[in-house]
């Protein structure tokens, strides 16, 4: 590889042999004129590392025997990255061929913004459970048309940061966070007045969980992660609520209802056709929210993680 690279693509991976090939093919076949590098930080116990070594020798593979969280994995990738721009995607995402090109164009155009990112598309639209998962997680990042705008959060599946800005804020929070470490990082940046630019045409397709069991388990984790993240932040919607445990518990039956209504309304405004075609998406989504609420309550009363609240 050449000495000077413009852009480093960093992908955290854990037991992703099913999706990693499609992901790497899309990342390596970019219409991008300038040199870029691809870094994978892998702590899998399955066949993923051998698969990468055999099929994509050009990729820089960083192995960890112990399992590392996605935030830590991304930080490990950044530690060896040489590009001016750090682009992040996930091992279960497939990006569009002009993904890097558009990211870098925006970075050049808006020198003052810290991050550029875009919407997440559902990568496996044939599955009902996958749509429910998509609805639950990415309803704020629908690939609607529109202008570039300044947002509060961009998911780590489809985002790029300027290297020097990323370094200044010390990277993603570590493994003590179950989920949403990207949200906490976004909040840190926003709190310091940085701009996160959301561009609707920069798209990455995310393959969601298709097994109901996995989906529910994931929702439980997200519920836990939400409490953790809100505890460490201030000024976000709900961050005062989680500091008052009793009040939050009393409000708990209401939260899934609010979340359900808001997400469904957003989704309906974007693509009502999908919901009409698969009406069962909504009950699945509602079921997931029950698990989400369970995770929320679990973390709310979990004594081990109380101390995390002081971390900032």
């Amino acid at each position, binding site marked *: 590889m050449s000495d000077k690279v413009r852009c480093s693509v960093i992908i955290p991976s854990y037991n992703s042999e099913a999706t990693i090939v499609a992901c790497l093919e899309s990342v390596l076949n970019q219409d991008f004129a300038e040199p870029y590098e691809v870094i994978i930080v892998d702590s899998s116990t399955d066949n993923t590392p051998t698969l990468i070594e055999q099929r994509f020798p050009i990729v820089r593979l960083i192995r960890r025997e112990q399992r590392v969280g996605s935030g830590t994995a991304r930080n490990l990738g950044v530690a060896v990255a040489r590009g001016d721009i750090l682009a992040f995607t996930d091992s279960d995402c497939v990006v569009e061929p002009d993904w890097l090109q558009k990211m870098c164009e925006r970075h050049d155009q808006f020198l*003052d913004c810290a991050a550029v990112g875009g919407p997440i598309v559902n990568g496996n639209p044939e599955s009902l459970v996958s749509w429910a998962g998509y609805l639950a997680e990415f309803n704020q990042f629908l690939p609607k048309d529109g202008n570039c705008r300044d947002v509060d959060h961009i998911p780590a599946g489809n985002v790029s940061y300027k290297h020097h*800005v990323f370094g200044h804020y010390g990277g993603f929070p570590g493994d003590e966070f179950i989920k949403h470490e990207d949200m906490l990082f976004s909040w840190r940046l926003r709190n*310091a*007045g940085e701009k996160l630019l959301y561009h609707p045409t920069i798209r990455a397709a995310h393959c969601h969980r298709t097994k109901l069991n996995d989906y529910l388990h994931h929702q439980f984790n997200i519920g836990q992660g939400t409490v953790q993240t809100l505890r460490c932040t201030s000024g976000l919607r709900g961050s005062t609520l989680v500091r008052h445990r009793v009040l939050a518990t009393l409000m708990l039956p209401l939260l899934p209802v609010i979340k359900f209504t808001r997400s469904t309304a957003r989704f309906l405004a974007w693509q009502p056709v999908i919901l009409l075609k698969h009406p069962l998406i909504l009950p699945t989504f509602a079921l997931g929210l029950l698990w989400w609420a369970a995770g929320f309550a679990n973390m709310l009363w979990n004594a081990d993680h109380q101390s995390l609240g002081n971390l900032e």
Partner: protein
Amino acid sequence: MISIIVPVFNEQEHIADCLGSLLNLDYPVHQREIIVVDNNSTDDSAKIIKGYPVRYVFTARPGAAAARNRGAEVARGDILAFVDADCLVYENWLEEICTVLSDPGIDAVMGFAEGTNGSLWAEFRQKLYEVGIKEEIQQEDTVHKAATTTFAIRRDLFLANGGFDESFLRAHDTEFSIRLHSRRYRIVFAPQIRVKHINPVILQEIIETRTLQGLFAYKIARMHNDILQQRYFPEFSRWYYRYIFSENRRRDLLVLNALALFLHRFIRISVAVLENLYSLGFRQSLFSFFRFTFDCCFLYGKTLARLLEQGCHLRSSIWHPFLRQHLEEVADCSAKM
């Protein structure tokens, strides 16, 4: 990299022009960042700022000192350049700052603020500002009472010295620069670093600001020992100052009260006189009188501070209406004294 920090409190009339001039700076865009700190504004300032490609930071702590500290906290540059929201910068502003600070022997630099508006009071205020600067640079080549209207400092030095003291709602810049000066840092005055400053045009506003500056100036003076006090506040060695403000004196509240009352009445009368004479246009004599009133305000502020220090409750006092708007600030200050 340079971080430009602009504290904003209810500046919806000026902020757009200010940011416009900052974005128009003749300086590489990737080597500077603009941080606008919203100090809990209640008007449309926040909305206006968000429309510009600048970093928007919020703080609820009161006072420009808190806003500037917050800006310094999130800044990424190694030089902090402060400018007020009611200023317009010249295109070469940042370049001049860089040139001055490229000399490692200079720790901080204070620029010159030109007056822009045509109101007579603003013009007078500007004249007094210029007189103040002239006196300042006559004594030695370093500045000890810098104004943050346009001011630049190295970030590590700023943080190592603890930044601005947030208990100072006014005159925090004076306090900070005196602190630096007494620690033998070098602050220089560079007239080539110029901004256009929109001075306040309402006489009452100028008077009140000056009074509060006096109040906090006394607080600064009290924070230092006798030697430094006489060095930075030579007026404290004058006989009447010694009589009124010396700590060794017994609590002579009667004299203080009488002085404060006299000054208060005098300032109110002179404001009325000034407003009336304004239409007649005796410029030069008007200026002298303005200057005298201005000095009286400063003394009045100090007297109030002394009264506060002696445990007087201003809330019930006779000068209540004069400081109505700033009563909270003053009460807050008295709690800390």
